[in-house]
């Protein structure tokens, strides 16, 4: 595909030009070790200035509150700055000057260490995300595995936080989050394995290239994988309806119960960071990354990518604003009995298709045939498996019976007793 993107440093459609120019300049005047040190700094600064910081502050904190405010028939933050846009800054300032309490009976070292453990992986996660065709900070061949590995670390930090607080609610939250992440990691990794089998690569830029080459996003080729990924990742990230680890109405704030001040702020901010990372990862893998059927020639690809990430994050916000929370045994059952078999089924299906693709000589058009097979197959699989597990839609009506006169008992079994 011919590309319109040039190599000029001022071509903002590909920011890697700029950093390359800077690095080459440094290379000329300084020993080459300096470039090694400057390169990551440029990467981090770029990623943070362009993506992480604005997303976190204005989508994660401000946007989430505004959107949920809209859903809840209220205004949301609108006092600090224009339209309340400075609210995240005000929040951060407030948290900074707030006392970070530590209970006397807590394990103080671990309680201080937990937020640090929690923050570090969030920064690492963005290293492998391709923001544009050449805009990936670390093109690790096993980028997908890197992502899985690093996104498993915050669970440990949350566990440490919950355990060290020496609070029963915190311990409950800690146990729940570990149980949840262990359970949901299995279907999550299995559907990512489907992606790897299908695209034949484990590098994230490679997966994007695959989607660009086949002119079709993986969400259409593997809808089931996408659905399982979304559910599993929202469980891993403690987003509603699976936020049992910090279920406010049950265990107060779960593992964060004893945290306050900036220690809590780090957890809060990095929760959003992880959600954004998961959204970025999902848009890389399933939504075609920076590609948009040629539109990336005209619009900066990194903007497309950010838009997709925020779109995915909006779904998180949406579910949070509407859905009630499940119980822990229901969630465990859902992971092991429902998602896991579906993920295995999807792996089986995708492997077969990949074999067929390897053998056949249909060329690139085969992905459309696969799409035509997979979308109905996924729907049928979900439906049949739910039926097999004994699920049936609720039969009892959602409106109570109405009676005219008081007195006496209306038998439960008698459906004709009341009129609707």
């Amino acid at each position, binding site marked *: 595909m011919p590309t319109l993107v040039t190599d000029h440093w001022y071509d903002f459609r590909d920011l890697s030009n700029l950093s390359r120019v800077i690095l080459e300049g440094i290379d000329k005047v300084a020993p080459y070790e300096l470039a090694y040190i400057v390169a990551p700094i440029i990467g981090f600064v770029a990623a943070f200035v362009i993506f992480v910081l604005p997303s976190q502050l204005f989508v994660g904190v401000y946007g989430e509150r505004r959107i949920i405010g809209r859903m809840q028939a209220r205004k949301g933050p609108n006092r600090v700055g224009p339209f309340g846009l400075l609210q995240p800054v005000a929040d951060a300032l407030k948290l900074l000057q707030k006392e970070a309490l530590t209970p006397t009976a807590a394990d103080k070292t671990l309680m201080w260490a937990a937020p640090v453990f929690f923050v570090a992986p969030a920064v690492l996660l963005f290293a492998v995300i391709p923001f544009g065709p050449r805009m990936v900070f670390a093109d690790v061949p096993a980028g997908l595995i890197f992502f899985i590995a690093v996104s498993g670390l915050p669970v440990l930090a949350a566990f440490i936080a919950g355990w060290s607080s020496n609070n029963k609610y915190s311990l409950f939250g800690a146990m729940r989050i570990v149980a949840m992440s262990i359970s949901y990691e299995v279907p999550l990794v299995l559907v990512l394995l489907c992606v790897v089998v299908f695209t034949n690569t484990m590098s994230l830029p490679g997966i994007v290239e695959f989607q660009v080459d086949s002119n079709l996003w993986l969400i259409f080729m593997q809808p089931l994988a996408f659905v399982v990924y979304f559910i599993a990742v929202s469980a891993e990230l403690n987003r509603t309806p699976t936020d049992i680890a910090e279920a406010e109405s049950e265990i107060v704030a779960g593992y964060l119960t004893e945290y306050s001040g900036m220690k809590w702020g780090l957890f809060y901010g990095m929760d959003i960071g992880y959600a954004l990372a998961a959204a970025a990862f999902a848009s890389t893998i399933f939504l075609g990354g920076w590609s948009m059927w040629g539109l990336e020639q005209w619009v900066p690809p990194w903007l497309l990518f950010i838009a997709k990430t925020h779109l995915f994050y909006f779904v998180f916000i949406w579910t949070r604003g509407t859905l009630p929370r499940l119980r822990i045994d229901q969630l465990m059952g859902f992971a092991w009995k429902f998602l896991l078999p579906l993920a295995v089924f999807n792996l089986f299906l995708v492997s077969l298709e990949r074999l067929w693709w390897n053998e056949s000589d249909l060329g690139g058009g085969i992905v459309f045939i696969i799409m035509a097979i997979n979308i109905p197959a996924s729907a049928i699989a979900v439906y049949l498996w739910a039926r097999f597990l004994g699920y049936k839609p609720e039969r009892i009506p959602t409106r109570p019976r109405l009676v005219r006169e*008081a*007195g*006496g*008992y209306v038998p439960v079994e008698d459906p004709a007793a009341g009129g609707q």
Partner: protein
Amino acid sequence: MTRWWTGEELAEAAERLVPGSVARSTATACILEAEHAHEALRALRDDPETNFAHLSNLCGVDQWDRFEVVYHLQSLERNQVACAKVEAFDREEPSVASVVDIWHGAWIQESETYDLFGIRFEGHPNLQRILLWDGYPGHPLRKDFLAMPGGLQPGLNEFAGTAAKPEPPVRPVT
């Protein structure tokens, strides 16, 4: 429309079900003999005519010379309400039979009555103070426990350091 039984009607029904269980009756309530009260209340619940399956209200009244425990009984099927009373005369250790085994819902109201009046309910599964804390001095709804400032405050003895008990004020007894 609910039929509100007079005391006489209830006395008649109770006497029919458990002979000798009625002490006397007033216009609104029927006072049951303490030793037969439990039996009579159970019979009133089970009898199809009275059918007082729902214990609407249970509370105590301090009448200076005696404590009354007031039961408002209710039948949902026959739509009627009656008021029964049981008296306890011992001022220091008043006690009546518990009706928790008849109406499950009585336990919380009996606990409350015990807490505020000091009336012991014999046979209550878990009789303890529910509104005030354990070790609270006295039972506040008794008439000799003064609430208003000006009088002594027996409830606050432990803070004031004076344990003097006031003379009961003279009030008309109905």
